């Protein structure tokens, strides 16, 4: 009888375990690749700003002087473009979705003082090197100039 086509399946469904789960009580196991949210190992970050330029929704910002990396989780669409673009691979996409909330707030990651100090030292060293190079160049130029002046006098 055509009218009873679905009846066996419907009866079977009555005695099957439900396919749904009681979610908050029974936590969901996300697959490994699930694009939940972005995490950063901030001490590896070189504050290059590639992620800021890549982000399609402009949710990231980087402050090089303060050594911070910040994200507005509510604006993030979890596309993973910043993860792909990061040259140091310090950004990772991890499972676990952003929880709903009443207000938007920016999450700020601060580099540790040791890393900041190391960076500062490096920068100083580079600056000194540059200074020394500039001084050497200036000296060489002056010497060349002096030589140049000497030549016509001869």
């Amino acid at each position, binding site marked *: 009888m*055509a*009218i009873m*086509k*679905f009846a066996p*399946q*419907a009866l079977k*469904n009555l005695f099957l375990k439900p*396919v749904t789960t009681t979610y908050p009580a029974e936590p969901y196991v*996300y*697959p490994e*690749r*699930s*694009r939940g949210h972005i995490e950063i190992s901030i001490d590896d970050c070189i504050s290059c700003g590639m992620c800021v330029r*890549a*982000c*399609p929704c402009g949710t990231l910002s980087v402050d090089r002087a303060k050594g911070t990396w910040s994200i507005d989780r509510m604006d993030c*669409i*979890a*596309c*993973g*473009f910043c993860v*792909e673009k990061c040259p140091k691979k310090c950004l990772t*996409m991890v499972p676990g979705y952003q929880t709903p909330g009443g207000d938007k707030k920016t999450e700020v990651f601060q580099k540790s003082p040791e890393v900041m100090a190391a960076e500062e030292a490096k920068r100083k060293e580079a600056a000194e090197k540059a200074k020394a190079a500039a001084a050497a160049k200036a000296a060489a130029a002056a010497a060349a100039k002096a030589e140049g002046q000497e030549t016509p006098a001869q």
Partner: protein
Amino acid sequence: MGKRSVIPYGPQHPVLPEPVHIDLVVEDERVVEAIPSIGFIHRGLESLVDRRDFNQMTYVAERTCGICSFQHGMGYCEAVEHIMGVEVPDRAKFLRTLWAETSRMHSHLLWLGLLADGFGFENLFYQCWRVREKVLDIQEMTAGGRLIFSVNKVGGVLKDVTDDQLKFILATMDEVEAELKVIKETFFEDYSVKSRLVGVGVLTAEQINALGAVGPFARASGVNVDMRKLGYAAYPHIDFEPITSNDGDCYARCYVRMMEVFQSIDIIRQVIAKMPAEKDLAVAVKGNPDGEYFMRVEQPRGEAFYYVKGNGTPNLERMRIRTPTFANIPGLCEMLKNTELADIGLLILTIDPCISCTER
């Protein structure tokens, strides 16, 4: 002649989850004319081209629609690749085909469920969505998102599908096929389903041709059109024939979509069998797009149209997406003429409307 009156239908309606508004001119219980109006959810995604570069636009294009998101991203990327003359690695092409077909499967299963819900067969509705959940699990496992994939990029794909995952997909396909056979029999032979679908909203092939309808909606009226035959992605390597029906009624549209789910299972099996072994996923893309291209891809709902025009800067000059529903709305209005008022919800559903992506 009975008394004429106008009934505003939508944009919010219990059986119709899409915000389309239709003014129905009715004569007693019979619809004489239908005047559609859209525009409740225009988001202006196309205007983002002057603020986002062409790589970022991939993610914007993808978010045009929640259901066929992968195919939007793929269509956009293929258009840009054509302009820039980039040849995508073979494995990336096959992976694109794989994901395109899983998204077709879940879209059709969603529609079949909604159809069952539309004519009041709740049990069948849940059954369809239960099967769909397995397809969504594949997508979440391989791409990281249940619906929004974000695996496309200009020049290839971002993620590989491992051999274990391919095995899992094959096993899931067997399960899905077994469960679908029960559903298929119910859809095709159940008395209550037939009484609501057979002979309702008939459109002939000539009408389809005049109105420019696309996709399963057109194929149900005997028009053999399937953009996958254009041979984008890995479709040249896949053996398939478009599924058509000659009846042109709601039952035929249900038939075409149901059989397309089985066809997708077959295509996925072929893709996995023919998957190239080399692991190249993407080629590096240098420079900016300069030129224009018209790209057409077959989405679950029909032919989608991408027009991309670049001017040699990172920002494109114009990106235009014409979604299948945009082309099907004239057909819908023609179909609604001379039908019973009680069938309207079901009839609108049978074009598989996606108004959000229509307005972009």
